């Protein structure tokens, strides 16, 4: 490119606007229709947005809303579903606003339509009322979502999330059934401390009863995900992670490990069921009797256990204990909270 230097090279400059060579004021589109057209663009978009949002929100809430996972099998699942629906109702207008705006811009303001040239200058560089409104609206939306989310977290006993050994969002009921969940590579076992502390691979819970899942692990970090009940709590070695829920429908549910825990993580799932309190009582009592012989060989019930020497430390720490002896390596009593009295089933109620 001969002649001028790189700094002076502008390529083809902006096509001059309608014969207005004067440097000041900046060129405007043909007078008269300017502000009016601008207003129409905005109102058209707003109209379209209000219309589509008014259609999309109720459509979603009444058609899809009741079917949104994790369903309605417990109070925490209810809460999660309701929360999701409210969030989506808040999100749909935001998504629609951006899509409508972008779609409108792409259709109407494309170069091939040969519309008026854009007007630069200060008025195209900022618009304080719009910037201010945008910031206020997004901040208000965010603070509303925060308040709503916090309420929904506190109100149904921590929303089914694992709260660690010292939970602060508690169920209203004082009659809470404690079930210990023990994650280990690569299965879940459950101990029922109020039924002699028997250990089983079957998860059976009574409905309309507040349940405290005490989740712990014998080796690595797992995550106890009871999908339909809306419960999720990490199983950490040496930690008692408590999550509450109150089932309110009968049926079966899926339990999956939701934290990568090694080779067979993908196969670490099973099923549990919600039964009536009477059925639960008789199941628990009969299982307690059936397993009584086994239970005697189990380590005494504790909130946490010393990991198996085959577990997290992978045999790294040679100790004097036979790593294959379940009694000696799994179940030393831990300091910390007092244990619930291991009573028999008959004593409970």
């Amino acid at each position, binding site marked *: 490119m001969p002649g001028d*230097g*790189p700094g002076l*090279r502008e*390529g083809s*400059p*902006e096509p001059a*606007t309608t014969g207005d060579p004067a440097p000041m004021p*900046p060129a405007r589109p043909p007078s008269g229709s300017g502000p009016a057209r601008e207003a129409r663009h905005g109102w058209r978009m707003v109209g379209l947005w209000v219309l589509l949002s008014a259609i999309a929100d109720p459509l979603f809430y009444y058609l899809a809303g009741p079917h949104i*996972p*994790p369903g309605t099998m417990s109070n925490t699942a209810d*809460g*999660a579903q309701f*929360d999701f629906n409210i*969030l989506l109702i808040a*999100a749909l207008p935001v*998504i629609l606003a*951006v899509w409508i705006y*972008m779609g409108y811009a792409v259709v109407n303001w*494309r*170069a091939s339509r040969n*519309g008026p*040239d*854009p*007007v630069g200058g200060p008025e195209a*560089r*900022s618009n304080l009322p719009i*910037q201010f409104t*945008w*910031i206020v609206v*997004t901040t208000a939306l*965010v603070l509303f979502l925060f308040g709503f*989310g916090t309420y*929904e*977290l506190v109100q149904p006993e921590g*929303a089914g*999330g*694992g*709260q660690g050994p*010292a939970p602060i969002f508690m169920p209203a009921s004082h009659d809470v059934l404690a079930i210990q969940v023990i994650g280990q590579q690569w299965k879940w076992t459950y101990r029922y401390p109020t039924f002699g502390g028997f250990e089983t691979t079957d998860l059976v819970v009574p409905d309309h009863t507040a349940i405290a899942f005490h989740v712990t692990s014998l080796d*690595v*970090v797992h995550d106890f*995900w009871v*999908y339909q009940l809306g419960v*999720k709590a*990490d199983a*950490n*070695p040496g*930690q008692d992670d408590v999550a509450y829920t109150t089932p309110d429908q009968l049926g079966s549910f*899926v339990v999956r490990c*939701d934290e*990568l*825990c*090694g*080779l067979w993580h*993908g*196969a670490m799932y099973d099923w549990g069921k919600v039964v009536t309190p009477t059925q639960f009582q008789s199941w628990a009592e009969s299982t307690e009797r059936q397993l009584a012989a086994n239970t005697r060989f189990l380590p005494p019930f504790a909130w946490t256990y010393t990991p198996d020497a085959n*577990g*997290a430390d992978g045999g*790294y720490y*040679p100790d004097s204990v036979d790593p294959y002896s379940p009694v000696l390596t799994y179940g030393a009593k831990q300091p910390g909270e007092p244990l619930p009295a291991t009573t028999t089933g008959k004593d409970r109620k």
Partner: protein
Amino acid sequence: MATDTADLAGSPFPGEVALARASLDRRPDWLRAHLGWAVVGAVVGWFFGRYVGDLIAGSWPVSQDTTMNNVAVVFGLSFGVLGWLVGIGGLTYPLLKMLGREPAPAPASRSWLRYFRLTEDHKVVGLQYLIGVLVFLFTAGLLAMAIRTELLSPTSHVFGPGTYIAIVGEHGTMMMMMASSAVVGPLGNWLVPLMIGSRRMAYPRVEAVSFWVFAAGYLVIMTALPLGGFSTGWTGYAPLQTQANPGMDAYLVGFAVIGLGMIMAGFNLAATIINYRAPGMTWSRIPIFVWSILATTALLVLATPTLIVAGYLGVLDRTVQTAFYVTEHGGSSFLWENLFWFFGHPEVYIMALPGFGIVMEMLPVFTRKPLFAYRVAAAGMIGVALLSFFVWQHHLFQSGINPDMRPLFMLTTELISIPTGFLYLVTLGTLWKAKIRFEVPMLFCLGMLFNFLIGGITGVFLSDVPVDVTVHGSFFVMAHFHYTIMGGLIFALFGGLYYWLPKMTGKQLNKRLGQAHFWTFFVFFNFTFFPLFLVGLLGQPRRVFEYAHNLQTLNDISSISAFLLGASFLIFIFNFVWSVYIDPVQAPDNPWNSKGLEWQTATPVPWFDFERIPVVLSDPYHYGEPAAPPVADMGIPALARIGAASPDQSVRPHDVASSPESPGNFDPHPPIM
């Protein structure tokens, strides 16, 4: 040798010629440091480290019991990296300086061999990074397709569980490593000096080494596969980390190496932006892309050390039997989770901010409008960068720590959507009454805004604790961050490549192929990842190889689209090879008619970037103003017979000397006259 003298005689730096002549490295070309020597150094270092490690720990019971000697593996990898850096010449300069000797600079070569060497030309480093990032991306992309192949069926398997887990971890880790440098490496290094009107980086040697450290990271993480892979995924959770096989050492060392490269690249760019701006390039005039890089460098420099420390503790646990992450010996698995995510969440914004920078840089060019609310854009990026240090515990909502911290971290996480909203305000405001030219880069901009919106909104769902109870750790999260990283950053990166490659290579990429690439990319990206939101919501955890039968249809849609998505990258490769090498079409000097400073210098950009240091007169967004001032005073070309008029003394003379193609004239490009 004779040519050296001849070249120097023609040099315009008489004061420094003598020094340069005296100290020039006169070894034959093949003997000086290059990639070949780096490979030799890496191999020698690997075997030396293995030998030392076996000597130290070969007799330990740990090594006997488990048939693996992590000490030897870690030593092998570390000495391998050291050998690599020695071989490439990265340590020569600092070591000689420490010994009190003046290092002999190599004569600058303009042959293609310089791409396989340590080089102080930021444009060469940028292109090295570009190739490196693409190799990283395509390797990890093939692994992604392997994952989707396994997930075609809920119960029948292509891979064993061990292989599958190894592939998942390798894919995730490589993608994270790649994405943290995807824009900062190629475009940051290449463009920032040109955009701020500088002839050089603040620390060109550090910059040069940072690429070769990045390349070493690729090799280290690739060794994880022959070492048996690692079973923890990219998050490397302990204590699974402690029990994993030697592939885990490659993960820990690899992340440390990549982290080192990130820190070096980060503070070099930050120092350059702060100190090397041309006269008149005030903070309110620097291009918005430079703002995004500056915000990113803050994260790179401040967040990455945490990762290196966390990895170091993990290496100690695995080698010398400490117990930082082993609960029953006094450590805590939460320590890793906190350290990792304290790095990991700023890392997410390392991968998001440059994407917005690219989009906001290109939008004014293709809309022919000034950038709307420039200050809001800069404030938004700084706000995101600051807040990103205060949100990491949202990864631990269900982990069993601090139940009372949950509302706080829910708040901080949701607050981030306010500065992110600023960025949408800026981009949408720029589209207002624009005159949009649908060139290929503009398509990628719009695609990025579309995708990132979905990624951002679903992020709000994840930040809400009750909803997070369902979607945490499921495919919902996976789809969310693929929408932000791939739909955001990678879309922006390719948009940026279509936009700037004509400047970088001097060749115009084919527009039709570019459009085909965009549309296949955009469509199949959405078909790959949108179904995964539903899959996650319907209960499929991440990183599983078995799933419920009723999810097969959605998974298959995703898998088949993923293969087509992979194929769409072939269009890009074909376009690149065809347009640059096979049937090159010379690009115009300023094909997009941009006002950016980087387009005002010659194409291809001479080694010294600017004939004269430009004096910046305005920001580069004065579109739609017929009377707008030029963006910069580039000097008077008629007088700029380079060397005759005050050259920048910061350019080292030996770089200038001995250009084989143009003896007697160090300027490879004829002066613009």
